[in-house]
């Protein structure tokens, strides 16, 4: 028999205080976790760090207690309108009903802005805003993505992967990205991905939303969790123009999830072009050096040079007390010349100039990029055509295939 059962007849009954207390506790248990909005009145802080205040509305009020373990997630500023997430609790020895909060967040633009300002100040005081940022890897083994369960953000990122490097390993971790529990879930996902060595960059992504929806990304504890990560963290929250606080602590920030994906997913084509460019650069520098040496060798009287070289070497060796190399210095110089010649021939065989001589041409865009596929240029684009001798400036008349 319960006191508060609806089908109980309205009879006056005598009950003990203990029984009443037990019944009250039993009656509130099914209410579970709730979110209640109201205004903060008379906030106080307990000795162990717990926070207490009265949550008031025009017609009602309730005591709110934030245990010390949750105090970092509870912002209680007198007069501020807040949203409290928690469960009802009945304290029999004091006969008091209270809401035990695990999250108190501000409601409304003014209060949210004030919270962000406070959080920014706390992060700055610990040097977290201007700490050195970690560089993003060019070829991460696995890219970790933390996002909501809505399909849009994931689809945006997947389409970028499909263009830049089809099949690139990206691991999505879906979490609650707004409302109560979001900060805990995001922080947990961050720690989990950070603990995995193959995940070499983490993207925190969320689509657009209003200030309240984006609030978790401005919370101090999430920002601190990002700073703790030893893996670089990239923030991509909302749309261009949204600037949540996590942008200010991230190793890199981008206006949208697509932009972030384009920055962390390597482009296979670009990498191949870059490798080509580096190989060609090393080769041409080496060729130039060899040409220079060759010109100098040709420009001097070889016998005189050998003799001069020998006497310089002899003097140097004598000073150093070495006698061994005097046996045949001329032979050593001859060997060096032969080696150079062999190297030059090898280089020349590889040289892009040789390829051009066979009738091939290199086509570059106005920005100097080598054109490999027709779809790199559009009709009317100016291109430069490099031939074995001289170059042509040309305009694209028609583009087919690609």
């Amino acid at each position, binding site marked *: 028999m319960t006191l508060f059962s609806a089908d109980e007849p309205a009879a006056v009954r005598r009950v003990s205080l203990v029984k009443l207390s037990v019944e009250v506790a039993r009656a509130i248990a099914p209410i579970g976790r709730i979110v209640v909005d109201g205004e903060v009145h008379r906030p106080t802080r307990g000795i162990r760090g717990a926070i207490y205040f009265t949550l008031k509305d025009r017609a009602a009020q309730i005591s709110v207690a934030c245990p010390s373990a949750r105090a970092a997630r509870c912002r209680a500023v007198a007069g501020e309108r807040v949203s409290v997430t928690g469960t009802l609790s009945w304290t029999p020895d004091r006969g008091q009903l209270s809401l035990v909060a695990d999250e108190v967040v501000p409601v409304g633009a003014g209060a949210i802005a004030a919270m962000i300002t406070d959080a920014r100040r706390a992060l700055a005081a610990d040097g977290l805003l201007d700490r050195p940022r970690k560089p993003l890897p060019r070829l991460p083994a696995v890219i970790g993505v933390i996002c909501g369960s809505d399909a849009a953000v994931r689809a945006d990122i997947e389409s970028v992967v499909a263009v830049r490097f089809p099949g690139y390993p990206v691991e999505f971790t879906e979490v609650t990205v707004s409302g109560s529990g979001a900060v805990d879930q995001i922080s947990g996902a961050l720690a989990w991905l950070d603990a995995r060595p193959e995940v070499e960059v983490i993207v925190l992504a969320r689509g657009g939303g209003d200030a309240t929806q984006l609030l978790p990304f401005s919370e101090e504890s999430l920002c601190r969790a990002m700073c703790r990560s030893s893996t670089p963290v990239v923030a991509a929250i909302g749309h261009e123009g949204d600037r949540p606080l996590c942008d200010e602590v991230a190793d890199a920030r981008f206006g949208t999830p697509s932009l972030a994906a384009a920055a962390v997913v390597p482009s296979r084509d670009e990498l191949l072009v870059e490798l080509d460019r*580096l190989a060609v650069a*090393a080769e041409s520098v080496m060729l130039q050096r060899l040409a220079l040496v060759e010109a100098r060798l040709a420009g001097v009287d070889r016998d005189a040079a050998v003799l001069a070289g020998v006497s310089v070497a002899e003097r140097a060796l004598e000073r150093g007390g070495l006698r061994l190399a005097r046996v045949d210095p001329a032979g050593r110089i001859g060997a060096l010349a032969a080696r150079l010649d062999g190297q030059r021939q090898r280089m020349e065989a590889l040289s892009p100039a040789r390829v051009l001589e066979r009738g091939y041409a290199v086509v570059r865009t106005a920005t100097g990029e080598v054109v490999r596929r027709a779809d790199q240029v559009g009709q009317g684009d100016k291109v430069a055509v490099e031939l074995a001798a001289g170059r042509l400036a040309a305009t694209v008349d028609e583009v087919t295939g690609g």
Partner: protein
Amino acid sequence: MADAEQSFDELTFEQLLASLEQLTERMATGNIGIEEAAALYERAGELHAAATARLAAVQARIDKLRGA
């Protein structure tokens, strides 16, 4: 060269590319001998091969994942 003995495996992809660029720059300056330039060129070839292999390994992993 101090880092000549360093294994390529310990370098990240970007370090491989950066080394390649540095080597080319050093080769281009006139204050090293032609023999040293040739040695640098040889190492540049090795770095280039290592970077290319790194990219190929990623592709191979993707192909394997897709095949599975």
